[in-house]
């Protein structure tokens, strides 16, 4: 167990030089956060661990491609994690499950009842507390992984509106989290 706290710059240098210490530090400091993200998308903490391994391996393999001009290391890793988790949800067996879920959610919308049909994990539970209009967009973009363009086509809403609602949704989400 390391006692040091590495700056991002130091950590990236260690990772890019394939340091065991660096990759152990990475695991200890970031794996839980990443697992939370993956689980909130997949909805199954056990399966999420398999995806976590896949994500960490991906980080290992692609670390030389990372440079901080676009953003922080964590943001880059979350992007890998989200993509991996979303890919899993687009897999065959999963799609059936997901379709059933989405049907339920449509019923949820139509009736406007505030009961959760699916056991949402973590951040998704918080998003579920947002006003319907924003929740709907954020849920699809954040946890189902549809692009804003796909959401626009699926729901028959102009792309501009989708973007505005997604942004407002995140602003509201931030307020909810800050308020806690």
């Amino acid at each position, binding site marked *: 167990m390391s006692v040091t706290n590495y700056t991002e710059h130091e950590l990236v240098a*260690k990772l890019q*030089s*394939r*340091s*065991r*210490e660096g*990759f*152990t530090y990475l*695991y200890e400091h970031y*794996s*839980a*956060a*990443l*697992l*939370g*993200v993956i*689980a*909130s998308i997949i909805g199954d*903490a056990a399966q*999420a*661990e398999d995806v*976590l*391994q896949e994500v*960490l*391996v991906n980080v*290992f393999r692609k670390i*030389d491609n990372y440079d901080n001009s*676009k*953003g*922080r290391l*964590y*943001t880059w890793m*979350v*992007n890998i994690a*989200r993509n991996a988790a979303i890919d899993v949800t687009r897999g065959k067996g999963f799609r059936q499950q997901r379709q059933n879920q989405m049907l339920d959610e449509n019923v949820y919308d139509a009736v406007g009842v505030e009961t959760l049909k699916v056991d949402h*994990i*973590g*951040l998704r539970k918080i998003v579920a507390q947002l006003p319907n209009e924003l929740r709907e967009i*954020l849920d699809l*973009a*954040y946890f189902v992984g549809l*692009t*804003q*363009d796909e959401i626009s086509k699926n729901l028959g809403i102009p792309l501009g509106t989708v*973007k505005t609602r*997604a*942004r*407002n949704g*995140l*602003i509201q989400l*931030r307020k909810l*989290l800050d308020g806690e």
Partner: protein
Amino acid sequence: METSAKAYIESGAIEACVHGIADESEWSELLQMAALFPEVAAAKLSAEARLEQIHHQFKIVPSLQAKSNWNAFLDAEGVINQELHALKKPAPIVQLMPSPKPIQWLRGAVAASILLLMSSILLNFYFWSQVTTVKNENKVLVSQQNTLLVQNNALQAGYNLLRDTAMLQVMLQPVKEATSDKATLLWDTRTKDVYVMVNHLPIPEAGKQYQLWAIVDGKPIDAGVLPTNGGEGMVKMKNIQQAQAFAITLEQAGGSPIPTPNAMFVLGKV
């Protein structure tokens, strides 16, 4: 703050990008705005830090199995602590003590002088032997440092090869079950040179050597023998114009014209 920057920050566009739900055009816009306005750059960093905070709030600690799986992966990839901690500089040569001050009174002066001279001589011998020891230690350390530098250069060269996108990477995986044998092969798509790095193979007994084969139309072609110590980093093998697969077998020292049956350790398809 510029109104355009302020408006941009308040629009939530930054959060949309950082949270991963924005499209390419929104990202381009963010990077441009961040390059133009330091406030936007700062807001972006802040949003990223907040993202990390939020995710830590909703973290799920992975099981011990997951940790073990990660360590197993690192082991299999041969990830060790290969950082060269700066070798300690050899201790500076010890200064001889300054000669003692001249004694005031003659009476004890001679005796005292002799005593002091003798201690001085003894001290000289003592420090001289220290210096010799230190010089020898220094030689050993310099030699060790040279070895490590050579190893490091070899490993660095290996990593440079791995990063070269003209290199086709073929992982050679175990043929026998439940082993962690592994080798990484790089095939230069331009020159057809072949390089191999042993990630993990059992140490061969005396008189035996690992040999690389290129499988061409079902026939094994000798691609060279590996150094008995496994080599440092990427080892250059024979030039191979075409192959559908590569394999490593254990042969007699010096290699064999045809591979020994049942002696294959790892195999990888191109």
